[in-house]
């Protein structure tokens, strides 16, 4: 009898142990307005469970109006849709990291209108079992500010402040120390060489328009070159691709000659427009180089595929060549074919160095502060992230998130 009872107990207990645990409704399920969006979407959040697996399905059921029936709008495996690091910044996260998050956007199947309240519930299914969550309600609204990007806005405003402060400081004292750029020594040498040989100087301002930094730097350097050229009476030729840049360069050169005390030496046709087509312009300038054989060629500004066509032709005529560009893809060609090359920001620095314009000097200083900040963040952030991985903690993400770009 006792043996039979024990056997019965073991059998029923075994059966109970073999039966799957009964499903529990998703913990902490709620619906809320999707943060930082243009409206017409809702966000569903609920806590992760250790029992979530690929065989368990979560169905989203929603209703458009109180009088209608709930209808299924989406379905996901239960072990998906987690909040991962980098999805949201800690200051605007709608749910904890590792929990579930689903964004329900308006669609043809389930349109969502702003200002209207929608009821949503989840159905969790696994095998033959299923369980409903509580119903949660929320309305969707468009947001006026993306709080996930507040760090981006703060940095932008801070950089603006630093830039304005640097310009103001430079206006008070323009003699800020700027490192001498090696290529600038060659400018005098190039002008002297052209004067001795009695051959013209060719100056190109690149392919960009007046809204390009490099073109502005090129026109400033042209002004300084023109001032030196005015003293020696050397011919300066400036062929253009852009009529607006040509107009600016005409004024810049005229003023340079006036400042050098040689307004009579200025020639109106020093600046001339050729065409705005890339290779037509290149062919025309190559023709000028081969016919007139300038003693010095200046290539300042932004360039594309035409760079090597110009510089190699110039090298073939025996001219001294000085280039300055922020077009990094053309740098290898300039470096190999020109005598001196100003790389990237050296072009901007050269224009500030030569002109000592407070705005240019101040801008350079402001940019230097910005770069120093970025370098500091890179070193500091890398160190923090590495330590975080080694000691297996996520606490440093509170600092690292401040420097990330979230959408």
């Amino acid at each position, binding site marked *: 009898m006792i043996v039979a009872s024990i056997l019965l107990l073991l059998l029923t207990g075994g059966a109970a142990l073999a039966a799957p645990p009964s499903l529990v409704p998703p913990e902490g399920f709620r619906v809320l307005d999707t943060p930082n969006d243009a409206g017409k979407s809702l966000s569903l959040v609920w806590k992760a469970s250790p029992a979530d697996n690929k065989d368990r399905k979560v169905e989203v059921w929603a209703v458009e109006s109180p009088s209608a029936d709930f209808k299924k709008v989406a379905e996901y495996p239960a072990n998906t849709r987690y909040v991962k690091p980098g999805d949201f910044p800690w200051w605007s996260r709608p749910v904890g990291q590792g929990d579930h998050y689903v964004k329900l956007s308006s669609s043809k199947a389930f349109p969502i209108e702003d200002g209207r309240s929608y009821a949503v519930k989840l159905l969790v299914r696994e095998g033959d079992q299923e369980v409903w969550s509580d119903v949660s309600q929320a309305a969707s609204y468009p947001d006026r500010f993306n709080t996930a990007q507040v760090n981006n806005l703060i940095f932008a405003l801070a950089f603006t402040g630093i830039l304005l402060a640097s310009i103001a400081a430079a206006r008070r004292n323009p003699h800020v120390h700027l490192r001498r750029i090696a290529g600038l020594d060659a400018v005098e040498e190039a002008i002297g060489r052209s004067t001795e040989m009695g051959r013209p100087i060719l100056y190109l301002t690149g392919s960009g328009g007046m809204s390009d930094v490099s073109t502005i730097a090129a026109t400033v350097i042209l002004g300084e070159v023109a001032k030196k050229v005015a003293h020696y009476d050397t011919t300066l030729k400036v062929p253009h691709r852009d009529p607006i840049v040509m107009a600016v360069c005409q004024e810049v050169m005229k003023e340079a000659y006036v400042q050098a005390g040689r307004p009579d030496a200025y020639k109106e046709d020093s600046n001339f427009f050729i065409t705005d087509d*890339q*290779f037509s312009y290149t062919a025309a300038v190559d023709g000028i180089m081969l016919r007139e054989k300038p003693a010095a060629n200046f290539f300042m500004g932004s360039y*594309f*595929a035409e760079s090597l066509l110009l510089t190699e032709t110039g090298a*073939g005529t025996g001219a001294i060549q000085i280039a300055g560009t922020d077009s*990094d*893809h*053309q740098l290898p060609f300039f470096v190999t074919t020109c005598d001196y090359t100003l790389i990237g920001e050296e072009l901007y620095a050269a224009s500030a160095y030569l002109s000592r314009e407070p705005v240019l000097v101040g801008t350079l200083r402001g940019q230097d502060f910005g770069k120093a900040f970025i370098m500091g963040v890179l070193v500091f952030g890398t160190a923090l992230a590495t330590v975080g991985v080694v000691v297996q903690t996520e606490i440093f993400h509170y600092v690292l998130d401040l420097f990330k770009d979230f*959408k």
Partner: protein
Amino acid sequence: MKDFARRMVGIDRRLIFLLVAVAVLFPLLRPFGLPIKISPEVNAVYDYIEALPERSVFLISFDFDPSSKPELEPQGIALLRHAFRKNLRIIGMTHWLTGTGLADSVFSKVAAEMGKERGKDYVFLGWSPGGGALIISLGQDLYKAFPSDYQKNPTHGMPVLEGVRNLRDVNYMVSLAAGGAGIEMWYVFGKDKYRFEMAGGSTGVIAPGLYPFLRSGQINGLIGGLQGAAEYETLIGQRGTATAGMDAQSATHFVIIVLVILCNVFYFVLRGEKGRSA
């Protein structure tokens, strides 16, 4: 030897041009057909398209003009062949006015080859001015940006564009770019705002400059130059002009390497002579 070295260092450029011309022509006439190794960045583009479900929306922007045709047209042809084979819905366009005719002829040619129909399987929207502004316009409403396609057919109601309202409905995007208006612009004004996945195809010259975007995940793949096009042709199993061109490119590279080595030999011979005479 020194005289010879002196003459060789100052050799007429036209002889070098002649050597390069022979190096390019000879393999085109007598190809040697070497295996092409696939790089991870090209493989990434292939894998992504391969994983797209049928009738997914694939946007391809031919952002180049005829000067970059030898490098970028083979990339475009290989991508279109792959996309048509996967039965994707293809939207084509361009930011370069002078490349419009070229892009349209590529579409027509590949579509005819793969038995695909304009308006049903693909649409070529053509060119519209604006650059970044055009991308924003596409991102808001494709039909306002392009009310009609290149052949003046209304885009509204086109079967290939069913369910596509703007760039948010694009599943994958590739920009074949030769310079300014290209990959960076698509990322800044397109992907950053409208969150579609994108890759880039570029000329060999600008490809190294795009590696930072690739490494940071801003583009998921990069097809660089003729080599990239040849790798993609190998992946889709349909060799074309890029693969044929790789033999010529191999020979040319070797000619340049030999010339550079010789130039350095002559340079050191002359430098040694100067050192001894000093």
